[in-house]
């Protein structure tokens, strides 16, 4: 079975983003970028499926700027076989990304598509579900466990009350949650080998897909900072403050 994994280049999760002085957007100049952590988990799951003999080929795809090649190389070093780079310098919305991915799904005909549950930049949590809608496929979002059995896929999902297990007809869309696996680090020889793996580069413009923005970013602000309060010296003082000052207990 061929597995397609969609990955996104985002701000590194350790970096605290700053808002531009004119409040037009966040400032990403010279900020450290990385593969979205949930996408790393998606790539790792594909590699494990291949190690288990379920996946036969892993194709990674990203829709993004030239620099996103770095993240494709990382995915290739982790075990993906080849990559597709759909280039655009514009920041596409989830719906537009889903439309581009739909085209790639039509071309590649994967048996399974893996995505991250959310990109940690704008925290949208939409793309996988949208791709599922556009392709008419079943969706298993927030996955913490997947098992392929014949033409079915069993997925355990992290939901508000606990865990839910669904059985999906393949091909299907899975979005990875934190507990799906713990991604490995790429080893140096694999990083070297990845340099020789193929990246097929195309441009969004050539696909003839409607990517017109459906939203307008009016302003971006820094949230009100919380002020640090006081230190209490003992449990007794804490209880006293909560009862008599904050009046919350």
């Amino acid at each position, binding site marked *: 079975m061929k597995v397609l994994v969609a990955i996104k280049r985002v701000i590194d999760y350790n970096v605290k983003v700053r808002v531009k002085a004119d409040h037009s957007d966040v400032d990403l100049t010279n900020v450290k970028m990385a593969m979205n952590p949930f996408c790393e988990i998606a790539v790792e799951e594909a590699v494990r499926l291949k190690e288990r003999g379920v996946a036969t080929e892993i194709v990674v795809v990203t829709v993004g700027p030239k620099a996103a090649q770095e993240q494709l190389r990382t995915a290739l070093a982790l075990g993906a076989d080849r990559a597709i780079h759909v280039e655009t310098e514009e920041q596409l919305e989830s719906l537009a990304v889903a439309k581009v991915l739909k085209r790639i799904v039509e071309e590649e005909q994967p048996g399974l598509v893996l995505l991250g549950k959310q990109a940690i930049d704008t925290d949208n949590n939409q793309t996988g*579900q949208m791709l599922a809608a556009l392709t008419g496929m079943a969706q298993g979002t927030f996955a913490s466990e997947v098992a392929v059995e014949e033409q079915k896929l069993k997925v355990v999902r992290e939901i508000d009350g606990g865990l839910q297990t669904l059985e999906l007809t393949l091909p299907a869309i899975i979005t990875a949650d934190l507990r799906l696996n713990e991604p490995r680090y790429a080893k140096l020889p694999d990083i070297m080998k990845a340099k020789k793996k193929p990246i097929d580069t195309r441009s969004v413009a050539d696909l003839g897909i409607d990517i017109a923005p459906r939203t307008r970013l009016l302003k971006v602000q820094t949230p009100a900072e919380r002020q640090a309060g006081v230190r209490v010296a003992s*449990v007794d003082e804490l209880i006293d403050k909560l009862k008599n000052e904050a009046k919350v207990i």
Partner: protein
Amino acid sequence: MGILVVAEHHNGQLATSTARVVSAARVIGGDIDVLVAGSGASTVAEAAATLSGVTRVRVADDAAYEHELAENMAALIAILAGEYSHVFAAASTAGKNFMPRVAALKDVAQISDIIAVESADTFVRPVYAGSAIATVQALDALKVVTVRTSAFDPVEMAGSAAIEALAIVENIGVSRFVEEQLASGERPELSAARIVISGGRGLGSGENFKLIEAVADKLGAAVGASRAAVDAGFVPNDFQVGQTGKIVAPELYIAVGISGAIQHLAGMKDSRVIVAINKDEDAPIFQVADYGLVADLFEALPELANKL
């Protein structure tokens, strides 16, 4: 054209999150309908009919909607959406699952996780783990929106809306419910609790979470956790508070043995009062805490449970 609010319910009970989503919808005004989709959903529909500000409750009662499978829910909502200018749902794991699917079926954007409504087409939402607050205008005629329920006070239950049965059965058939493992529910639900006490990696084991529970019992609090505590298997996944877990804003949040990573803060920094208990006086959690206690949690928690 009015607003359709998709109700959330569990075990035949209307979730309080629905009253909060209606509250967000009321900022826009106009008619508000509530959709109750489920199997054997009449009690939920009756409860929804009492939500203040709701005109009509529309009930799709069929086995196809029993487990809120995204494919069936989205197909149903997409059919109804043509009658509305907005579709709102909670940014719960259920809403996050089916709403983007609705948006794509209708070829429109979704605005995720809003914390304020500025006008009928303009919404405020946190991005980058809450490090920035974006004001976003939706340009599509139909607005599909998920609501961060902790940011809105619930409407009262003083209404009497009409209840209408829908005969729309959308059974897409590509997914099947197998089973669910749900928390037992002796304690208040995390995202609706007035007091939350959370434990982190500092607790050291699942067994030691008993120390947290003892305090929770005294306070009638819900129990939460950091990602590190969940990843280590101390507590189940649905305890996770943070950017990629649950967002809470209780009256009182007590963080114990939690360092205060930005991803954790994103889920609790809008709490009214924050208490931090940590043995490291430089832990970042103290920067957002109203009351900080530098102490070993293994001494502080039993003492707290005793003296409360």
